[in-house]
């Protein structure tokens, strides 16, 4: 999987920037949201969705010109696209390729959906979630987020 397959034909190569490949099909727009990319920001972005892929069936791909991702951004992407790979591109070549990491704890990444949770008050409590088998558990109130995780990302 080091050489690009047919998707290279779907969206043009980029010179400098990041290609996020093997995104869970249907999650590309959530990835853009996590990265703060909207219609009004200036990045040059290409998106391909539901691309055939031997490895995960269907996948999405996002290419962003002139941008490398910060760790917190990669942690957020890991939540909604656990199989994603991050390719750093310089002069049209992949200079670094890595999978997303799956941290055991997420600090300040997800808002607790429980309105009664102490983290949703004026208290100095930063959101903290433990990654468990079937989702994310709030360190403070034990609330379990098992689906639609993207909606709770800060």
């Amino acid at each position, binding site marked *: 999987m080091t050489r690009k397959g047919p998707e290279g034909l779907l969206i043009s190569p980029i010179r400098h920037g990041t290609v996020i490949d093997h995104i869970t099909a249907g999650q590309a727009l959530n990835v853009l949201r996590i990265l703060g990319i909207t219609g009004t920001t200036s990045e040059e972005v290409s998106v391909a969705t539901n691309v055939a892929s031997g490895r995960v069936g269907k996948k999405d791909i996002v290419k962003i010109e002139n941008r490398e991702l910060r760790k917190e951004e990669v942690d957020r992407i890991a939540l909604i696209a656990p199989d994603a790979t991050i390719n750093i591109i310089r002069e049209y070549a992949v200079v670094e390729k890595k999978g997303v990491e799956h941290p055991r704890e997420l600090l300040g990444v997800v808002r607790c959906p429980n309105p009664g949770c102490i983290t949703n008050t004026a208290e*100095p409590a930063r959101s903290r979630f433990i990654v468990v088998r079937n989702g994310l558990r709030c360190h403070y109130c034990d609330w379990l987020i098992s689906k639609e995780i993207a909606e709770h990302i800060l």
Partner: protein
Amino acid sequence: MRHIISVRDLRRDEIDRLLDRAAEIEARHFDPHLLSGRILGLFFFEPSTRTRMSFESAMARLGGVSLNMGSVEASSVAKGETLADTIRVVSGYVDAIVLRHPKEGAARLAAEFASVPVINAGDGAGQHPSQTLLDLYTIRKSMPLDGLRVGLLGDLRYGRTTHSLAIALSLYGAEIAAIAPKGLELPSGIIHELNGSGTPVTEHTAVEEVIDDLDVLYVTRIQRERFPDTASYLDVASSYRITPDLVLRARPHLIVLHPLPRLDEIDPGVDALPNAKYFEQAHHGVSVRMAMLSEVMT
């Protein structure tokens, strides 16, 4: 320094040690001056007279003194002080803190800011480990905790005492029968968690379906406000009422528990049966809390 915040933090051997200590205390094998000269701070941001009195009684029996925050209205909280600041300040006044607070996770937050041990005496709809420990203690008085078939009955969706108890029992190889009306079933997240730790869960809408198989029946309140109107509430409440006839059909060693106060969930006719353990359960509160105080304060 250790805190007691949630049953999820406790290993089986730690629970066993607390229950063993409570048993020694109940048998009057304890030093009545163990905590002499020590001060316990009771911070109840919502009223729970019985839990508070039970901790005060436990502290007094161990020779210590309790300080009470008093009403929230008269305190700095009314001026908008955060819990974190309150806890930082009062950590200098007392040797341990018992906290009851309406927000879930408040006790865990308090433990981060406290310089003395914190015991969670209930945070909102969240954890209340002293209740769970006394539930386990009461069961253990009647039978060994291993491999029990336990029925949880009532509002299992919002009733988090049942969640904590089920999670604690999963350390002892229990099987759980979740008996609840439509709409108040045990949340799927809890069922997954229990299954993940090897605890089978079966779901039922009528207690008659399972009562013959149970060792323990844990009854909780079904609250009126969960239903659209009084008629539908009464309809459900009456079909979940525990009667003497029902208990007499069960295994002879079945015990019936309830965290109290009860309303109509258990027919007063059950009280006289040897299976009824809910008043005994309430009496064990002081011994169990004495064990908790001696654990964190010595």
